[in-house]
């Protein structure tokens, strides 16, 4: 009885989490414009998704933005974590406090505050993409810092000193000794930054150039409009993203278990 209840609950919650996406993915391969009305198999949604200029621009824009933000925040966050790790207690405490702010803060507030500072106070043109990049980087950097820090704590500090004693310059020792040891943390921080940027809606709306759209802002605008063609093309996009996420999670898990075996 207990076993049945436990399995039942797990599968019920899984159904709640996955059925909507799976059903949408299924209907993306039909010519239906509404769920429930079954029509024939069709790849029209996928054709629309990859031929409509507006949709292509939106997808390319989202990916380019996510990669730029992830690179920036990985650089800043990694340097910050290494620097803070070797800093005095007080300095490190302050940096850790600052680091917590974007993590606990509501994204609406983070986005709005960056908008006020850069656009309202400093009159930086949204079209330069600077407010958008700064805003998303402010959100992502702390997560990189957090994933690098534990690796620094686990690291063998004596290796760095040994490298210096053997005549290595501090700069070279940093790249040959410290960076390789914290690499897994840097990589997972990079991945977190990518997903945070892809998922962001609020910072983007408050700081983006008027004509630029990411997946999030585009989808929200599309639900206000009533263009069926666009609506169902977005179903196809959901199906593709769902598949991409599954594939990357499986790859990451396989790699992780390989690492553990070694």
């Amino acid at each position: 009885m207990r076993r049945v209840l436990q399995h039942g609950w797990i599968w019920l919650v899984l159904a709640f989490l996955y059925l909507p996406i799976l059903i949408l993915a299924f209907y993306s391969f039909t010519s239906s414009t509404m769920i429930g009305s079954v029509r024939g198999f069709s790849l029209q949604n996928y054709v629309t998704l990859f031929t409509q200029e507006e949709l292509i621009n939106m997808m390319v824009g989202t990916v380019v933005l996510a990669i730029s933000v992830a690179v920036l925040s990985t650089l800043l966050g990694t340097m910050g974590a290494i620097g803070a790790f070797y800093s005095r207690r007080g300095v490190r405490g302050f940096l850790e406090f600052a680091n917590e702010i974007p993590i606990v803060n509501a994204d609406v507030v983070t986005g709005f505050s960056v908008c006020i500072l850069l656009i309202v106070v400093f009159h930086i043109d949204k079209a330069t993409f600077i407010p958008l990049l700064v805003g998303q980087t402010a959100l992502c950097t702390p997560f990189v810092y957090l994933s690098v820090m534990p690796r620094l704590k686990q690291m063998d500090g004596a290796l760095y000193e040994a490298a210096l004693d053997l005549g290595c310059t501090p700069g070279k020792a940093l790249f040959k000794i410290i960076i390789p040891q914290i690499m897994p943390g840097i990589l997972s921080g990079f991945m977190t930054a990518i997903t945070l940027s892809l998922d962001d809606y609020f910072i983007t709306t408050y700081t983006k150039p008027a004509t630029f759209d990411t997946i999030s802002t585009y989808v929200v605008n599309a639900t206000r409009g009533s263009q069926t063609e666009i609506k169902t093309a977005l179903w196809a996009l959901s199906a593709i993203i769902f598949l991409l996420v599954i594939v990357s999670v499986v790859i990451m898990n396989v790699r992780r278990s390989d690492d553990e075996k070694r």
Partner: protein
Amino acid sequence: MKTSNFERKALAIPYALFMVFFVIFPLLVILYYGFTDGEGHVSLENFLNFFRSAKTVGTLIYSLVIAVMVTAICLLIAYPVAYILAKGEYARKHAFLMVFVLPMWINFTLRITAMKEILTVLEGNLAYHPFMNTIICMVYDFLPFMIMPLFNSLTKLDNSMLEASADLGANKWQTIFKVVIPLTIPGIVSGITMVFLPAMTNYVVLDMVYNSTYIMGSLIGSYFNAYDWNNGSLISAILLMFIGLFTIITNHLIAGEEGGRRR
């Protein structure tokens, strides 16, 4: 030795400057705008008006109701899931947690779209149940963020605690309520912090299911659209106070013990 230490410390400079200029400074500017009038004079007028107006107080109460309900439902669904994954039938299948957190990585607007299409078919018209649909979509969106910290906290719980409790004569439920839940308070608290605040502010979910009632986040959105920087900042400042208070209480409750981190 001294020179090498200096070099490594210096790496934090760009990060520190970035955080001060683009994280701390914007919040100070928000506080300034929130508590001054259009001409730059210090004024509590906007702040007092917020609590005087039935409309904005109503918004605050509505957001709190939504946030409490969404958080409570997430907790009720997620706790058994996390328990079963960590201590029950699935305890040896750690990869199973991945299945529950995976939806986190899919863009939330696309996930809400999926849920919205399903609800449209089930209900005929979304406009009939705006409140219920908001709750369902938010629970759908935030559930993985509740499961993860609860799972982290439950796996850390030593099995011998459960055995000791059973040996001393407690039944299954007594063990859960007197041992398991009190020992996983840090996980529960960090799960709550991950869900409560987004539920008060994520107004996109309401927009998407055509719920035209405002929550706190919608106020910022509408002031932004109206270029009303002072009132927008004021709402942000009020939310900041909430967050500050929340963080103090949370830190107090967790008191040194580590809970799961957000995401």
